[in-house]
């Protein structure tokens, strides 16, 4: 019995940090409507700076002063980030905001390694809380008891701040209606900056307070951000009480889940989250959001199928690409195969994101599931390659069917957070279920059969599949199903009103996108000859997002160009520098801020501008409205 009580208290102690970080995320989202992906990065910087300060200044004052100073320093960094970066993108679609803050996260990951080195750092114990309390023969660290008290205290302070101060009243008002607050003479800029500073302070404090319990390392940002996303999805974005209750719930599930499913305790959390989402899609303490801003839709450029000339041009490009083996060596062909595979991956996400308006932040899950499907079929069942290629992607299809069912209940940022959480869960299973997946060692020796083994043959196979997939998805875009999907994207309410079952349409799109990603993953497994948990990882999901964005969210097939450019750049970059995450992150931020329409979007805009210069094409948009006056 005493053991369970101690386990419960350990869970409560873990909840404190989780609550601090989650409440910070919630507050920031409430006012600025930005889901701050970089929140985990601020948490991590808080821990690193606290480590340095407490290491340098010993004693009680040094420790506690160091913790607070670290949180304040990070809050200051947050202010700079808000003023330099976020102010430029408050009016951008939320997807761009998520991506920009993700770019920051990538940069921070490389920067902390650059500054503090790649090794785990062990922080000092807290002065005054070094010992343990005996509880019927079980030890409870006294620092845990401190954290257990701290959580509710912080909750109380936040409550007072929001209920009893003018600043709190303004923040709550802005959470509901930013424009009206401005229309009453409140300078939103400083309100946003101060809110961001408070949120980041909480995240950094959460990180700093962890150093006596856990080692500080450069992957702690992603670990916490996934947990925080789960917490805010369960508790409800924007609710501080919700963040507290959900943080306790998730921490307890983790603490006791370890006892029940030692390897895959995260499954328990996932099950609870799924139940909450079905019963209350906006979380326990959240409230239904007003319809989210549309993800694409910066312009009103109607899509059209290719003209026959354009089709011939596309065919010509394909023929030229198919002639690559005549001139290129094996390395170039392998790179070419990889690019073709990523074209498949990118167009599958593009279908979900641009056509369906559903920005998945965990699309790699289905890519990776396709890859693992091949590994299971080829290695364990020993099936021939053709059969494997046909059946392997079905694992991606299955995963997309299950997760997609839950995910399409939501939209906007909730959808993004949920898909990310799902992907992370699949990743943890692949990582931890060593007996089946080989864990971190992956599954090796998945080689193609003789007919596809040579680089040129495999290149043709990948190229052919990529072309087929792209054509099939284009046909789907201009099919009745595609029209219905675009209708749900542009207005879920109106499409429901004309008899479209929006959720089923979206679910179908999710499954199509997941299966297609699985096809890419299947080929990837054969290309690499092995499968690793990284094939399902967050960074791969983000690669896909960047490819789509780089090509242009609002184009029909920009993702193809985006994938080619990005992948080629990426492969070249990794061969050139160790700081690829830093460069990549900066690149993402740059795209979002100065290049939001992507490559193909830019080209289309230029073409249109040239078209507008000539008299017949001019005022196409303005004319009907003016003549109506």
């Amino acid at each position, binding site marked *: 019995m005493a053991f369970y009580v101690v386990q419960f208290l350990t869970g409560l102690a873990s909840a404190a940090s989780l609550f601090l970080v989650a409440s910070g995320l919630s507050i920031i989202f409430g006012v600025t409507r930005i889901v701050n992906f970089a929140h985990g990065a601020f948490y991590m910087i808080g821990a690193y700076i606290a480590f340095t300060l407490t290491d340098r200044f010993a004693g009680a004052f040094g420790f506690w002063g160091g913790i607070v100073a670290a949180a304040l320093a990070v809050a200051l960094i947050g202010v700079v980030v808000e003023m330099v970066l976020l102010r430029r993108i408050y009016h951008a679609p939320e997807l761009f905001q998520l991506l920009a803050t993700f770019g920051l996260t990538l940069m921070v990951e490389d920067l902390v390694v650059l500054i503090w080195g790649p090794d785990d750092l062990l922080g000092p114990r807290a002065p005054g809380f070094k010992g343990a309390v005996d509880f019927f023969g079980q030890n409870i660290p006294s620092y845990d008891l401190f954290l257990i008290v701290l959580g509710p205290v912080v909750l109380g302070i936040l409550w007072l701040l929001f209920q009893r101060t003018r600043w709190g*009243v303004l923040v*709550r*008002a802005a*959470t509901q209606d930013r424009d009206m607050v*401005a*229309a*009453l*003479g409140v300078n939103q800029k400083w309100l946003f900056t101060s809110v961001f500073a408070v949120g980041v302070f909480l995240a950094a404090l959460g990180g700093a307070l962890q150093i006596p319990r856990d080692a500080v390392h450069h992957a702690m940002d992603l670990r916490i951000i996934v947990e925080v996303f789960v917490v805010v999805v369960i508790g409800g974005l924007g609710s501080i009480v919700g963040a507290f209750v959900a943080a306790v719930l998730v921490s307890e599930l983790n603490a006791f889940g370890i006892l029940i499913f030692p390897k895959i305790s995260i499954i328990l959390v996932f099950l609870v989250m799924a139940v909450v989402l079905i019963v209350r899609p906006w979380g326990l303490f959240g409230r239904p959001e007003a319809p989210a801003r549309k993800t694409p839709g910066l312009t*009103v450029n109607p899509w059209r199928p290719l003209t026959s000339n354009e089709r011939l041009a596309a065919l010509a490009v394909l023929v030229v690409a198919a002639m690559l083996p005549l001139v290129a060596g094996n390395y170039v062909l392998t790179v070419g195969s990889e690019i073709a595979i990523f074209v498949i991956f990118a167009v599958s996400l593009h279908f979900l994101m641009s056509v369906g308006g559903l920005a998945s932040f965990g699309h790699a899950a289905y890519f990776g599931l396709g890859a693992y499907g091949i590994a299971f079929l080829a290695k364990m069942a020993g099936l021939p390659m053709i059969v494997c290629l046909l059946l392997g992607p079905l694992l991606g299809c299955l995963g997309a069917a299950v997760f997609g069912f839950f995910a399409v209940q939501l939209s906007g940022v909730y959808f993004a957070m949920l898909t990310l959480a799902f992907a992370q869960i699949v990743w943890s299973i692949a990582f931890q279920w060593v007996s089946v997946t080989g864990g971190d060692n992956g599954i090796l020796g998945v080689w193609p059969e003789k007919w596809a083994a040579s680089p040129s043959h495999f290149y043709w196979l990948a190229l052919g599949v990529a072309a087929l997939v792209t054509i099939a998805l284009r046909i789907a875009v201009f099919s009745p199903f595609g029209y219905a999907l675009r209708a749900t994207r542009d207005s879920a309410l109106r499409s429901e009103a004309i008899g479209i079952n929006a959720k089923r349409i979206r679910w179908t799109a999710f499954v199509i996108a997941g299966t297609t990603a699985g096809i890419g993953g299947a080929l990837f497994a054969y290309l690499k000859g092995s499968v690793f948990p990284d094939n399902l990882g967050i960074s791969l999901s983000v690669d896909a997002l960047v490819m789509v964005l780089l090509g242009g969210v609002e184009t029909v097939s920009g993702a193809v160009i985006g994938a080619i450019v990005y992948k080629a750049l990426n492969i070249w970059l990794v061969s050139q520098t160790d700081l690829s995450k830093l460069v990549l992150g900066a690149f993402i931020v740059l795209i979002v801020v100065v290049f939001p329409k992507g490559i193909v979007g830019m080209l289309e805009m230029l073409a249109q501008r040239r078209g507008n210069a000539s008299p017949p094409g001019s005022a196409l948009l303005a004319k009907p409205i003016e003549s109506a*006056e």
Partner: protein
Amino acid sequence: MKLTVQDLNSHYGPAHILFDIGFEVGDGEVVALLGRNGAGKSTTFRSIVGLVAQRSGRIMFEGKDVSARPTHEIVRSGLGYVPEERRIFTDLTVEENLEVGRQPKRVNAPYWTREKLFALFPNLNEMRNRPGGRMSGGEQQMLTIARTLMGNPSLVLLDEPSEGLSPKIVEQMVDAILTMKKEGVSIVVSEQNLHFARLISDRAYIIERGRICFGGTMAELDARPDIRDAHLSL
């Protein structure tokens, strides 16, 4: 002149909404902006306070061109705005709603305190701690006006204050607006209801399809039944 609007043009995306809008409001004057649904009354107000991003033209308020200023600065200079949809903060209590609107005292404008406003709108006094979401439409309309007055404006843009209110509340609204006028607040009130406008206004402009098509005193408007019938559905 308190407020002079010249050549105001506004767009929502590719759609051109307002065409060369121009009108004037004198010190302490109540001016009605009349027009049908969708004529451009709300867009005119939203453009003046900077809530419509794509706008051009000159907006002179107390001798200064505010057309390039951000919303909060325009409002802080003493130009209050009461939106049509009321936009009460539903989670906040009556007192907290007023707190959001509070701005420092201004030399050239009447100074409103909470108590003064509770005297002006006695209904609000009885529900100081009630959340805005649990109030009737009429009570919300009073709160939204009181909230704007907390900023001590010298001019208020009142967007359709009588819309959807019961005749009894409309009477109270007329009294409140006349009190505001007596205190020295200039008012631009947009209305579809000519009777209501006639009770409070000195002059009127008629807006139709984004263009001003009449401007004059209420007597001049009454002398032109053709204009009235052509542009206002009664």
